[in-house]
């Protein structure tokens, strides 16, 4: 299938969503002028676009800060979660020692400990990286564990019949089996990591989109706050898509998008 055909197919697939968005934005624009809604309460889409353009130079810096915090926190979460999941499923002693503690940690609302993390790691990027890490770590561990345990019983019997040892079973069966599960969690986690970074910036920071939202809404520069929110939404979608692309690279055996859309190859 040619790239051009594929792009046409994916645009055609997203067409209805694009049209709906345009209609909603038009209603918003008309509504704000029709009802004379003040800019500080709800800025019109055109005002938000103005703000984006006007503040573009500083916003680029804030995007960079928030993006960096999110991605670093997320990458550490993935790198930490997989070996920990492997250790959990490979030894029942490790499982019984650590899994309950992990589950308990998972149930702590991460925004509740954000002020303490700022206290420990300062108001710079590090504290946000830590929050992004903590918030995105647990879903990946839980899903990786599930994927490593959800192995086919016949495949497991086959590995045992060829006398594979624990490490060979981990490497050749459990880990590859967990890859789709890990990616499913990663797609959720990367968005959560962004939430974590913004929470951290709310609590204490001097840059980043969360900081911009907090500062501009306190100064009634609501258009700038909305501009930052739009940017966060775009970042969230972009990060989600990147994880989806990496997933396709890592799972060439999975049915392709064209296949699922029913577009002939």
């Amino acid at each position: 299938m040619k790239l051009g055909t594929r792009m046409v197919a994916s645009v055609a697939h997203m067409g209805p969503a694009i049209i709906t968005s345009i209609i909603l934005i038009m209603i918003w624009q008309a509504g704000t002028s029709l009802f004379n809604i003040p800019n500080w309460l709800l800025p019109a889409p055109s005002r938000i676009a103005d703000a984006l353009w006007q503040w573009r130079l500083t916003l680029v810096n804030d995007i960079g800060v928030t993006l960096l915090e999110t991605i670093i926190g997320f990458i550490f979460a993935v790198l930490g979660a997989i070996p920990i999941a492997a250790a959990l499923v490979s030894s029942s002693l490790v499982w019984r020692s650590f899994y309950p503690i992990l589950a308990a940690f998972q149930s702590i609302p991460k925004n509740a400990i954000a002020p303490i993390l700022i206290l420990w790691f300062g108001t710079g990027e590090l504290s946000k990286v830590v929050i992004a890490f903590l918030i995105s770590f647990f879903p990946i561990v839980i899903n990786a564990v599930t994927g490593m345990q959800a192995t086919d019983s016949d495949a497991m019997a086959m590995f045992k019949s060829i006398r594979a040892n624990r490490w060979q079973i981990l490497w050749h069966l459990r880990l590859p089996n967990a890859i789709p599960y890990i990616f499913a969690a990663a797609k959720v986690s990367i968005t959560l990591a962004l939430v974590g970074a913004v929470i951290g910036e709310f609590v204490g920071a001097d840059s980043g989109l969360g900081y911009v939202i907090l500062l501009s809404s306190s100064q009634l520069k609501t258009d700038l706050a909305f501009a930052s929110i739009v940017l966060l939404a775009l970042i969230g979608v972009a990060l989600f898509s990147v994880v989806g692309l990496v997933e396709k690279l890592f799972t060439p055996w999975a049915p392709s998008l064209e296949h699922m859309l029913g577009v002939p190859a």
Partner: protein
Amino acid sequence: MSSKIAQIWPEVAPVESFIDFVNVGKTFRTRTGDIPAICDISLSIPKNQFVAIVGPSGCGKSTLLKMLAGLLTVTSGRIDLHTGGRDPLPNVGMVFQRPALLPWRDVLSNILLPTQIAKLERPVAVKRAMALLKLVGLAEFARKYPNELSGGMQMRVALCRALICEPTLLLMDEPFGALDAMTREELSIELLKIWQHQPKTVLFVTHSISEAILLADRVVVMSARPGRVIQTVDIDISRPRDFSDVHSAAFKDYSSLIRELIGTRH
């Protein structure tokens, strides 16, 4: 070629026993109490014999195979393996009812898996795998993923995977049970060809009486749970066999004999 195999066959005719089941019993412990799955099975299997095990479902046929493969322990009695070498465990190839291929590996890598576990040299292993794929008519599918193959093709790949380490013992647990009748017949004949090409001891669990007679030198008939051996029936139909044998008088006699044996309550 087939007449050559027929000549070779009497020469490798089995004499000494390779596997001895001695009063083997298996009891599963569950919360609601002990469930005896297999009771007092004694059976001698000579080297290179093709043995089919038939019986009603739940009679412990699969349990028998799993104990032999070392996947389950024996509760009472013992299983003696006369492997000849120092290794008390035989080189086992196993095929299950489902192909149980790894979806993330292509056909060739799936077949190579046992050689990776056994740390065989890769070039040798690849050569062997390609020869096996050619034998089952899938040479051009080496780079396909399992989900791109039909059920019958997947089962052929599973068979290749079981054969790649050149096992002395092939354990097959209702391998063709999930396939349609036509594919099933094709694969039975292919299995016979492979077995006559490279003789090995085969234990083949099946629900199908005609499949058992067509394939095996000896059919072990088991009773309902707890599984016991009702009788073993030697199948005296000349080899190589094919599907025309199914219509012979001898085949029909064996079939009604075994059907009768299974119907007997013990």
